[in-house]
């Protein structure tokens, strides 16, 4: 029943998957460009932002139309209301990838003060977290909650490590201050990307359970309780 409506809902999921695939690639390309000093690649990341912005607007309009015409309730309503949040978070992630790419262009002529190790690692963790959140959205499955919480903590720790290391280099030689500041900023962008990816998982949690929780407040006992409950409901 309601086959047209069901198709519209399915199409939204497909479009979000497409939007997130573009965003993920922008993210990995921006850090790859940083590592390889590939200005041309960085410029393509900046160009691709228009695609993501257009997709966000397109999806907003589609969701508004469905809400206006189909009167969604219950899980459908939660899915559609959550779509607004998910696409906003994806759009912000794309913006942050653009920020990283702009820094690549800024540093293009410079010799890096040290080989980049933690920034690519932080990027890898953020990508993993984003993939996991989008997979959770597609399958409406929150069983990987613990991994999300762990990954977010690892990203925060890595960002801290980047800040401390850059600080040490800047104190050692004032010539490092510009680069050190830029690398700290990039670490911060990646940390925020992790936060946006976590927001997406929080939204999936709302779709599945009807409840909102702040993952920053989750302790091990609460995670176990949630996962135990989820298992029982399955």
């Amino acid at each position: 029943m309601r086959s047209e409506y069901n198709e519209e809902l399915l199409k939204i999921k497909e479009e979000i998957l497409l939007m997130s695939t573009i965003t993920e690639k922008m993210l990995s390309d921006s850090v790859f460009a940083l590592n390889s000093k590939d200005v041309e690649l960085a410029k393509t990341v900046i160009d691709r932002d228009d695609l993501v912005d257009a997709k966000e607007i397109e999806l907003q309009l589609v969701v508004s139309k469905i809400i206006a015409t189909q009167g969604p309730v219950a899980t459908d309503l939660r899915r559609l209301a959550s779509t607004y949040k998910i696409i906003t978070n994806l759009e912000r992630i794309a913006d942050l990838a653009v920020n990283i790419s702009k820094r690549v262009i800024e540093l293009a002529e410079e010799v890096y003060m040290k080989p980049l190790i933690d920034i690519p690692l932080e990027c890898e963790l953020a990508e993993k977290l984003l993939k996991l959140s989008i997979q959770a959205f597609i399958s409406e499955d929150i069983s990987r909650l613990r991994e999300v919480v762990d990954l977010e903590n690892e990203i925060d720790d890595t960002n801290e490590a980047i800040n401390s290391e850059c600080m040490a280099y800047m104190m050692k030689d004032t010539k490092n201050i510009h680069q050190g500041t830029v690398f700290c900023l990039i670490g911060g962008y990646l940390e925020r990307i992790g936060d946006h990816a976590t927001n997406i998982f929080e939204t999936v949690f709302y779709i599945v359970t009807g409840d909102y929780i702040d993952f920053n407040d989750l302790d091990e006992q609460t995670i176990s309780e949630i996962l135990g409950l989820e298992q029982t409901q399955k």
Partner: protein
Amino acid sequence: MDKIKFDTKSLDLFYGDFQALKSINIKICENEVTAFIGPSGCGKSTFLRCLNRMNDLIDSVKMKGEIIFDDKDINGDIDVINLRTRVGMVFQKPNPFPMSIYDNIAYGPKCQGLKDKRKLDTLVKESLTKAALWEEVKDRLNKSALGLSGGQQQRLCIARTIAMNPEVILMDEPTSALDPIATAKIEDLMSSLKKDYTIIIVTHSMQQAGRISDKTAFFLMGEIVEFDETPKIFTNPNDKRTEDYITGRFG
């Protein structure tokens, strides 16, 4: 704690051999709007009619269980006329009497012995005002009620119910024959009336149930599948059958 107006306990109802209601247990609170939703033939109108014993008029109906209204079982030894005065009803199709607007409202109170013209005038004005119709009809009270629009006729029927000073108003799909503007007026009216009355409404419109009711009961095949706060039912119902029905996937 909200005061319970109706407390139904293990109510079964049979039309001959067919069981139309199965072990209905529901507490309906005073001064709230309670909506009954469910597919056609699920028992929601049957249950609504139980609440003022309208089913007494059908010979083959048999009932078991209790419906406690305030402190008394309405299926026990009570005065049915008095019950129907306290529990008024508005039907799907507006059914004004073929008489003037004034007489439509005054008829019931007159039958109950109210003769004083001034008191009747006040009652007519008050009832029409409460039903948000006074301003539209005050200059033509002696004209036939049949000349009113469908939405006005339905508000007249609500005014006629209010004139009997009921405690509860039962509404069986009261807006299904009305256009969206008339529907909006009736819905506004329900929100304003609930401070004085307990309102129970059967509706096929999910949006209407969502807009106007405090609590919603989902009926299916003679049973109440789920009864909860309306926002809960429409955002996160507990039962998959409720979800399937309200999202239109019930097949």
